[in-house]
């Protein structure tokens, strides 16, 4: 019970990050800088919140940092025709070092944190209430985000366009979609969400700032996006699963001491396994036979991910 409450709580920053990356990749832009931009925005979020004593400004700063990094990737891909992986990779390293350099004056000091706030009525629902509704505002926003992103992507007209842009940009263009403009918008939005995820670490879950405060969490988020098959709800489930693995690691330490330290890396083998299964002939045959299963299992990446689209 309590454990589930904690699980939801600690997974929340990852939820923001994986939904953000999912949106960006759906539009065809892979933001490989996530490890770095998550860290830099965690730093920026904390420093700004500390200096201004305003949580709101802290989150805003995180969002802006994440968005700027993402827009730089979009710009170099769209305008300069550079490879997204190359630029993303460089930005990953740069952002990590920048976070250390710029954040050095604000290490391990107490700053503002997001306070818990239970939702009146809802928190009294048996079983569910204490798990989902005795949290903080950030967590509630993450619920809305996950369902909102899912609804937007799969149930709305612009959402269909978003998918089209990442799937076959020239076809989207021929229908009058402004492909590159949408790529800027969605990549920027995705980056902002990654930034909010970073700030959620330093302001809510792993409060404060320290050297490489969110190390490896960006890579884990990247793995979860794939595990989530480019669908927001499944990606969020992946984030919760990761938090669950951490809890399990703790509970299993006594009976299986050797396993405990291995569990946190499980998202990576899991991601590989997911990819193997997604692409297996076996799954393809299964979903050919039962098309309804496709929504559950399928998880093909957007076809045009990582590519440059030129109109002329």
């Amino acid at each position, binding site marked *: 019970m*309590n*454990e589930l*409450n*904690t699980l939801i*709580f*600690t997974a929340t920053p990852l939820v923001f990050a994986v939904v953000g990356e999912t949106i960006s990749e759906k539009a065809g832009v892979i933001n490989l800088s996530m490890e770095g931009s998550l860290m830099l925005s965690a730093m920026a979020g904390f420093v700004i919140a500390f200096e201004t004593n305003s949580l709101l400004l802290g989150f805003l700063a995180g969002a802006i940092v994440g968005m700027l990094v993402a827009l730089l990737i979009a710009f170099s891909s769209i305008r300069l025709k550079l490879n997204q992986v190359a630029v993303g990779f460089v930005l990953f390293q740069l952002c990590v070092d920048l976070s250390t350099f710029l954040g*050095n004056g604000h*290490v*391990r*000091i*107490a700053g503002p*944190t997001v*306070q*818990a706030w239970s939702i009146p009525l809802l928190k009294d629902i048996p079983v569910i209430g204490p798990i989902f509704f005795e949290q903080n505002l950030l967590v509630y926003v993450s619920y809305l985000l996950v369902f909102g992103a899912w609804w937007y992507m799969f149930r709305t007209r612009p959402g269909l366009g978003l998918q089209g842009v990442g799937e076959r940009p020239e076809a989207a263009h021929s229908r009058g979609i402004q492909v590159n403009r949408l790529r800027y918008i969605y990549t920027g939005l995705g980056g902002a969400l990654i930034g909010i995820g970073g700030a959620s670490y330093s302001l809510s*879950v*792993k*409060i*404060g700032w*320290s*050297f*490489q405060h*969110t*190390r*490896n*969490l960006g*890579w*884990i988020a990247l793995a979860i996006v794939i595990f989530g098959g480019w669908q927001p709800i499944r990606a969020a489930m992946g984030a919760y699963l990761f*938090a669950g693995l*951490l*809890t399990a*690691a*703790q*509970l299993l*330490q*006594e009976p299986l*001491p050797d396993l*405990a*330290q291995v569990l*946190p*890396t499980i998202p990576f083998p899991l991601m590989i396994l997911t990819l193997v299964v997604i692409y297996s002939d076996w799954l393809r045959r299964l979903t050919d036979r039962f098309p309804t299963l496709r929504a559950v299992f399928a998880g093909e990446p957007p076809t045009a991910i990582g590519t440059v689209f030129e109109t002329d």
Partner: protein
Amino acid sequence: GEDTSETTAAPATTTTASSAEPLKFGMILVGPQNDRGWSQAHFEAGQYLEEQLGAEMIVLDKVNSADLPDKTVDQVAQDMINRGAQLVFLTSDDMRDGALLAAELNPTVPMIWSSGDSAWAEGEAPAPFDNLGNIMGRMEFGKMIAGCAAGLTTQTGSIAYLGPLINDETRRLVNSAFLGASYCWENYRGETTPLEFTVNWIGFWFNIPGFTLDPTQVANGFLDAGADVIISGIDTTEALDVAGQAADAGESVWALPYDFDGACELKPEICLGVPYFNWGPAYLEVAQSVIDGTFTATWQWNGPDWTDLNNKETTAIGFVKGDGLSADNASTLDQFIAGLADGSINPLVGPLNYQDGSTYLADGETATDQQIWYTKQLLEGVTGPSE
């Protein structure tokens, strides 16, 4: 560069610093110098030396293979010596190999490997370098006091220990905290149900997400499982952060950070206190001996100044009480400390069993330094893996 090892032959004890120039010493830290924990405690001891002696510190932090991949510990020591360091502090258990190599390559330069046992002739792994000494504080007392504060405060009778990696030192400290907590729980509060005392290890001295367990998650897990006091054994302050959040949300929980005397400042109102290292006096003594040309490599395991636990001039370890400790409990804790000081209380007396039921200390047996330093298992009554 000029290589000091070329002058060889002369024993370390003959190295004399000219009294005209201030002493230069190197300080090699394993973590960030502002970690509010282990590394910062050493760093501030270095600043203390600068103050006291007008000495000059050459410091490098984050010296571990992940954060400083292109220098090894011995190379860093060499760099410092090349820059004129006449004494080098290597301040982590992790630096053993680098310390031994640096000592071998620079036989005339005095060095201290803190928390190590290489200069302990009666230890398990003495090393033959007469320029490499060891300094460590008797933190088992600090942890007993911390444990006592926890035992006095807990409402649920369940205390958790946020452990780093598992070795002799960390087992020693967990056991001490457990003994302190049980003593105070039973003797001052008169409880008869045994205290629940759980330890989870994160796998390293501090958090590396993805490889170690996440201390935030572990600390939250402790609270979820019903513990209301968390004793931290890691270099950083997550236990206090997490307990602070829970307290903000209205829960009655407390925490005790570790290593650094200022650690409570992050969340004073639920901090029961912090056992910390005060490396200054011992380091000062060593530095002075280098200046005087009387340095000898010894193994020091320094205890607290029982007359004033927080006298920065004299004590090797200390304990600062936190605002979270009630006035009643604070005075009870003082009673406990006084008992430790005069020897009337010694939790490290048998009968004590290891977790597997084997005897650690027979009935009435008092632990020797070797038995304390080389603790092989957690004690019976502690929940959590021993290795």
